[in-house]
């Protein structure tokens, strides 16, 4: 039938119609159809990709993509610099965001919205304070510690966090965290979180039953924000967070004790690679699969001061226990990466094309399985 359609498009109308009326005899008439709404997304493994949509920053989006096929599943609007987080049980999406009642102007309302993670329907909202950080999408700016505690990063630009009681559906406290940023959950204690501070220390805060800071400790300096700053995003094995630094070191920090303590430091790059300026770059620069101990980092060459958001020329993978590089693959201009929960797929956000690249990890080297264009300015991905 392609030839017939082609003829039609070319305007050879009479001939085409003659052809069609004959063709028509061979096909049953299509039935009248019924319009429905998809009750829920179908993909078992999903990637949630926030998009600040900076050209229309009041109208951000959270895109949902099938992690196996790349097929687009649906979207949730996330308002003005909204931060999103899947709930611990994976059934809900929290979005900390805000709106003006006249779009660009007027009266402001800041809320945490709770959406169903598969029907993509709005469930309810919780009012929060206006100190909410209006930031690019980064992991750990909105963190769920437990069924009860959801923590929202603030910036006025002074930094603090607000503690949302999900049971009471309200903000119960504000905790000052001056000079510190991001909220890292501590797996062993559902009332505890850590935060990275500009003086190189890590603070650990434990919530009391009223949501206030019952205990707070500061570590010794564990990194140097001038000489070798840590990217804000890292991933944990148990209570040990693995961060990477601007110059390409892995800095592991144990959040499990009373105070955060150093838990190892090693280099992603050889001396020769360091000289060539191979560095990590992007917004979500650590992908970790805890089961297999594989850690992936998006790397660029020719880097230096200011290159820490450059997209990847290559993605490098390491065995976390041996600290040996075991994967070296194309970078896909990525600035955010992740691994599937089964460890069999590597995901990369191509910042230039605004697309998600899905790589199969079952062979010796990652192999691109699908690429799907997603949104406009994706800087983060969250794996269901």
């Amino acid at each position, binding site marked *: 039938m392609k030839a017939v359609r082609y003829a039609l498009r070319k305007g050879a109308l009479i001939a085409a119609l003659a052809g069609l*009326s004959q063709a028509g005899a061979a096909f049953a008439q299509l039935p009248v159809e019924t*319009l429905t709404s998809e009750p829920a997304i179908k993909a078992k493994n999903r990637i949630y990709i926030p998009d600040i949509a900076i050209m229309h920053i009041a109208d951000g989006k959270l895109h949902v993509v099938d992690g196996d096929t790349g097929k687009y599943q649906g979207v949730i609007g996330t308002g003005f610099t909204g931060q999103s987080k899947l709930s611990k049980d994976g059934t809900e999406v929290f979005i900390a965001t805000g709106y003006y009642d006249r779009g660009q102007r007027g009266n402001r309302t800041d809320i945490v919205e709770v959406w169903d993670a598969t029907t993509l329907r709005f469930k309810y909202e919780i009012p929060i304070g206006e100190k909410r950080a209006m930031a690019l999408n980064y992991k750990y700016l909105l963190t769920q510690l437990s069924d009860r505690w959801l923590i929202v990063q603030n910036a006025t630009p002074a930094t603090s966090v607000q503690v949302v009681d999900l049971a009471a559906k309200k903000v119960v406290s504000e905790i000052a965290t001056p000079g510190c940023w991001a909220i890292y959950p501590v797996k062993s204690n559902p009332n505890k979180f850590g935060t990275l501070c500009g003086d190189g220390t890590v603070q650990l805060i434990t919530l009391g039953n009223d949501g206030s800071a019952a205990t707070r400790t500061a570590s010794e300096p564990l990194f140097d924000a001038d000489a070798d700053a840590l990217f804000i995003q890292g991933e944990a094995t148990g209570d040990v967070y693995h961060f990477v630094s601007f110059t390409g070191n892995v800095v592991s920090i144990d959040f499990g004790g009373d105070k955060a303590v150093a838990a190892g430091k090693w280099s992603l790059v050889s001396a020769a690679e360091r000289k060539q300026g191979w560095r990590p770059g992007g917004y979500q620069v650590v992908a970790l699969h805890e089961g297999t101990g594989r850690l992936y980092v998006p790397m660029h060459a020719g880097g230096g001061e200011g290159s820490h958001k450059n997209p990847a020329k290559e993605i490098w993978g390491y065995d976390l226990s041996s600290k040996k590089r075991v994967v070296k693959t194309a970078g896909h201009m990525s600035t955010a990466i992740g691994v599937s929960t089964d460890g069999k797929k590597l995901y990369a956000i191509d910042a230039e094309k605004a697309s998600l690249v899905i790589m199969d990890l079952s062979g010796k080297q990652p192999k691109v399985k699908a690429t799907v264009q997603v949104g406009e300015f994706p800087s983060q991905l969250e794996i269901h």
Partner: protein
Amino acid sequence: MLLQILQTWIDRFTERRIRRAAQLTSRRSTLAKVGTLLVGGAALPMLPFDRSGGVAHAAKVSPVDDAETCEYWRNCALDGFLCTCCGGSVTSCPPGAEASKVTWVGTCKNPKDGRDYLVSYNDCCGKVACGRCLCNYNERERPAYRMGVHNDINWCMADKQTMYHCTVSVIVGVANA
């Protein structure tokens, strides 16, 4: 079928007002010529140009029957985002979006059987714009003085939540059956 659909929304939304102004513009005048409009229009070439800033479908290679392409036959008069690219299908809205109560109807020739089908272009409503697969075909489309065959308007307009998300293309009959 088309008349029936148009009738439905006319009845639903405009009866009282139309009665008031009946001496000037009869309801019939709005609809009378739709019947003839559906017959005889030739499927001439369209210029599918990308106004999405290169973000949407520009780079896509499109097999003829791919419902995720603007060139898919049902989309002959669709102006908007294809729900097939947004988590829905040609007959279903993506999760969390609601099908519009009112709609406009196009007539598209199915190249497989040569028949002209009436296609209901419902918008899916209540969510941010999907932003994927922006299409703009206009066979038998008319300015909004023929509202029932107009596509430069948000067909979520009669819904409680009117935010435009994407557009489906549902077969609702055969044009000249």
